């Protein structure tokens, strides 16, 4: 592999790129250090975490800068290398692979099985380089053809590969299978390094104010560190085993942080729910990865698995089953529909944790995993060649389902939680329709504005000590203008108003849905995405109205009601209890009771908000397309994100060569119609919500008057009855009979077996005593005694004591012996 890289012009990754593995290690060290000496440092314990994550952030920025150079070098090396194709003929060792590959490129029908063992090592070793090599081997005409194809696809770049920076050590060996730990640094890992460290840093700073005085202050920061470490390790996992391990570690940290205020039963319940719901999907992850492990010839290596999937060396059935199993994991981890129920309950944790979970770590792990194993999903679900597939369906359902639920929440964090569910749906849907870059780009921009929204809600909640918009908020605009404006900017980005970040990423997803796929379009998902945009705009406007406009409905600080009895009926018990959690916090707030009305938060809360709002404005410019109506945009500033972070190599679906599914990976072009229509839908949503809430227009109270509307409202309030389904029907329906069956089993079978064994032992013991011991053993002992005595009785007769008799016998015996002696001889 490295020999090939040198032949292609020796692109050296920089020092920081080579050593990026220290980033998670630093955070892990920070975790240990905070736990070890944090208690002694008191409120300065957070400094360990902040300094560590600050260092990691700077490191990640450095990594990104070096990655920029690395990509640039790779591109140039490939171009100059392609121009003088003569040189590469000296590279004899690569020739068989090149020829095979050239043959494959010319004849896509060539069955994979015929290629034998020769190609497989080549695909393993030089996989990412194969395209560039074969292009050069085939000489200038092919290069021209490739370049044409590139331009035809609107890329403007020749086909080149970017070698991922990998480094690994063998953990242990079992037979021929090597278990490795290592890092795999390619575009998406580098991008995630930046996002995770940045969000984590801001969350750390925000938290120093937000959880100040908490009784488990050090515990909190320790787990923030571990959470960051797990996620950072996860994004640069080199093999699937490491991926699973760190995936689980992320889950454990989220469990610990969601249940941070575990004294309240609902909080610990929420933590358990998050953990257990994730277990359901993790089974899928485990099974899927095991299938891939065996299908790819007993390897955990992510690049190798993806490469083999792309070359068609893994059967389509294996890929299909594996990707469906992995999809289950995505559904639980990334809060996709039907396994999303844990995610809103996870709001029981402290708000900065929610921001971290929803923006950068826990929930994006699922999306990231799909992106990471995209070769498997692309080929397994035939993403490029169909117009509907499981991944897109799950994503599409989640977009609408999550957005619908966001309308009826009175807890500001739950609105945002369902918004996250919905936005994750967009990402998964984008991956499902083949718009890989759009999905990752949406992940990138979403991280900033959603973290901004969560921290903004935290800022508001910090002032009013509640998350209940209907009961304790309203009119916050006058008290907290700075928070308000950052919130509005982030909301605009979420809705997708031009030119905020969400506009660009959401538009790219919609363009992908309209242009990619086997029939040229995933039309159904374009519709879903557009409706989702409308709904997003409406529920976010409702959220802003309830929080920042109207009359202030909350109690003044001195008289904060600790009771939760008078919460609205529709209010979920968990929401009430996250309020409890905040009361706990309020009790530690040194400023509590100093003033009457809520007031603006301090700088440690506002500065992260400013930064995130700023990024929510500008992050979208990272991937401005230069096609369609925007084709005038200068190429150097266009599609920077795609150019930098999209993997190019054998382990990713190829832009030029049709894989085993017969589809070529493509990028959507900017479509002014979609951009305008989605923006208009967003504005329409804002307008409708504005008319309804601000102006009081529309049929208010229809849920009471109209039966149908009432049913719809009740379904939404009860969250589509998923919780009833899970805890009531599935868990409740199962646990009773199962408990009875288990009891019966225990009483009759297990106890029967145990009793039977006991009784059998008694009977056996008695038999052994009576028969074997008493009769056989003792009989033998006594019998030998009797025999000896009897023998003695017989022989004593001979013992007369008369010497002469003895002598006579002796003589007689001698005579007899002598006679025998004489006769015989």
């Amino acid at each position, binding site marked *: 592999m490295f020999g090939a890289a040198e032949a292609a012009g020796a692109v050296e990754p920089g020092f920081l790129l080579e050593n990026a593995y220290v980033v998670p290690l630093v955070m892990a060290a920070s975790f240990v250090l905070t736990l070890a000496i944090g208690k002694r440092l008191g409120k300065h314990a957070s400094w360990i975490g902040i300094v560590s994550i600050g260092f990691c952030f700077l490191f990640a920025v450095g990594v990104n800068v070096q990655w920029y150079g690395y990509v640039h070098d790779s591109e140039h090396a490939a171009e100059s290398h392609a121009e003088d194709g003569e040189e590469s003929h000296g590279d004899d060792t690569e020739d068989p692979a090149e020829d095979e590959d050239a043959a494959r490129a010319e004849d896509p029908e060539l069955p994979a099985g015929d290629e034998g063992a020769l190609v497989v090592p080549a695909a393993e070793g030089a996989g990412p380089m194969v395209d560039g090599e074969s292009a050069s081997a085939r000489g200038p005409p092919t290069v021209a053809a490739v370049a044409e194809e590139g331009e035809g696809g609107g890329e403007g770049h020749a086909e080149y590969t970017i070698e991922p920076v990998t480094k690994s050590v063998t953990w242990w060996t079992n037979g021929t299978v090597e278990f490795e730990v290592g890092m795999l640094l390619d575009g998406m890992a580098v991008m995630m390094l930046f996002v995770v460290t940045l969000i984590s840093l801001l969350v750390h700073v925000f938290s120093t104010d937000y959880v100040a005085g908490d009784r488990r202050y050090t515990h909190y920061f320790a787990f923030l560190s571990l959470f960051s470490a797990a996620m950072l390790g996860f994004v640069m996992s080199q093999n699937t085993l490491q991926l699973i391990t760190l995936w689980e570690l992320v889950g454990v940290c989220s469990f610990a942080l969601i249940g941070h205020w575990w004294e309240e039963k609902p909080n610990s319940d929420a933590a358990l729910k998050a953990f257990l719901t994730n277990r359901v999907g993790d089974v899928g992850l485990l099974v899927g990865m095991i299938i891939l492990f065996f299908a790819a010839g007993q390897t955990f290596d992510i690049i190798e698995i993806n490469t083999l999937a792309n070359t068609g060396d893994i059967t389509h059935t294996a890929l299909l089953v594996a990707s469906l199993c992995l999809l289950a994991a995505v559904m639980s981890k990334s809060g996709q529909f039907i396994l999303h129920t844990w995610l809103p309950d996870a709001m029981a944790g402290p708000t900065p944790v929610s921001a971290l979970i929803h923006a950068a770590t826990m929930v994006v792990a699922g999306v990231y995993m799909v992106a990471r194993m995209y070769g498997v999903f692309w080929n397994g679900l035939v993403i490029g060649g169909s117009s509907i597939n499981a991944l897109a369906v799950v994503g599409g359902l989640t977009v609408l389902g999550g957005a619908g639920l966001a309308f009826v929440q009175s807890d500001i964090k739950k609105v945002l939680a369902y918004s996250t569910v919905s936005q994750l749906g967009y990402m998964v849907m984008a991956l499902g329709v083949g718009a890989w870059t759009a999905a990752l780009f949406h992940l990138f921009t979403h991280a900033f504005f959603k973290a901004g929204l969560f921290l903004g809600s935290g800022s508001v909640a910090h002032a009013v000590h509640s998350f209940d918009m209907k009961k304790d908020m309203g009119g916050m605009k006058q008290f907290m203008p700075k928070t308000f404006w950052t919130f509005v900017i982030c909301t605009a980005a979420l809705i997708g108003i031009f030119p905020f970040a969400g506009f660009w990423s959401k538009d790219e997803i919609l363009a992908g849905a309209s242009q990619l796929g086997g029939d040229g379009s995933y039309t159904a998902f374009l519709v879903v995405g557009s409706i989702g945009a409308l709904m997003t705009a409406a529920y976010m406007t409702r959220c802003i109205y309830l929080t920042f406009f109207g009359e202030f409905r909350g109690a003044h600080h001195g008289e904060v009601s600790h009771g939760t009895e008078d919460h609205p009926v529709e209010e979920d018990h968990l929401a009430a209890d996250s309020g409890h959690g905040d009361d706990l916090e309020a009790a530690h707030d040194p400023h509590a009771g100093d003033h009457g009305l809520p007031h603006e938060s301090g700088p440690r809360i506002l500065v992260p908000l400013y930064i995130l709002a700023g990024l929510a404005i500008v992050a979208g410019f990272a991937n401005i397309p230069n096609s369609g109506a925007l084709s005038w945009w200068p190429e150097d500033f266009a599609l920077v994100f795609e150019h930098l972070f999209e993997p190019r190599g054998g382990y990713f679906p190829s832009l030029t060569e049709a894989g085993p599914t017969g589809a070529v990976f493509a990028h959507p072009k900017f479509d002014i119609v979609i951009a305008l229509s989605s923006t208009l839908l967003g504005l329409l949503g804002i307008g409708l919500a504005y008319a309804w809430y601000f102006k009081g227009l529309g049929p208010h109270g229809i849920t009471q008057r109209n039966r149908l509307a009432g049913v719809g409202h009740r379904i939404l309030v009860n969250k589509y009855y998923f919780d009833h389904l899970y805890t009531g029907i599935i868990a409740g329906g199962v646990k009773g009979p199962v408990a009875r069956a288990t009891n019966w089993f225990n009483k009759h079978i297990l106890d029967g077996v145990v009793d039977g064994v006991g009784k059998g032992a008694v009977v056996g013991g008695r038999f052994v005593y009576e028969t074997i011991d008493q009769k056989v053993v003792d009989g033998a002992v006594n019998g030998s005694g009797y025999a000896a005595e009897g023998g003695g009785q017989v022989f004593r007769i001979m013992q*007369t004591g008369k*010497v*002469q008799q003895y002598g006579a016998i002796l003589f007689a015996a001698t005579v007899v012996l002598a006679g025998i002696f004489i006769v015989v001889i």
Partner: protein
Amino acid sequence: MDDLMLNQFLLLSAILFSTGVYGVLAKRNAVIVLMSIELILNAVNINLVAFGAHNGTIAGSVFALFVIAVAAAEVGVGLAMVLVIYRNRKSVDLDEVAQMKG
């Protein structure tokens, strides 16, 4: 010594041996039993000397000398035992010396 002479010696030896055996088995007096044992030994001695002379070697005579020495020792010990038995029982009747009866 020719074969005829040897036969006569062997015959004498056999008569002596048989007489000895008879004495040992039949007589009750311990002293007579000891004397009969001497007869048996001497029958053997005659055999040894006769065969030695017949074969022209002195090995038989030498062996006979050893037997005589051993017999003297045996008689010494035997008479001592008879004496002790007599002192204890005032009798040398072998039928009465039957403590070993089982």
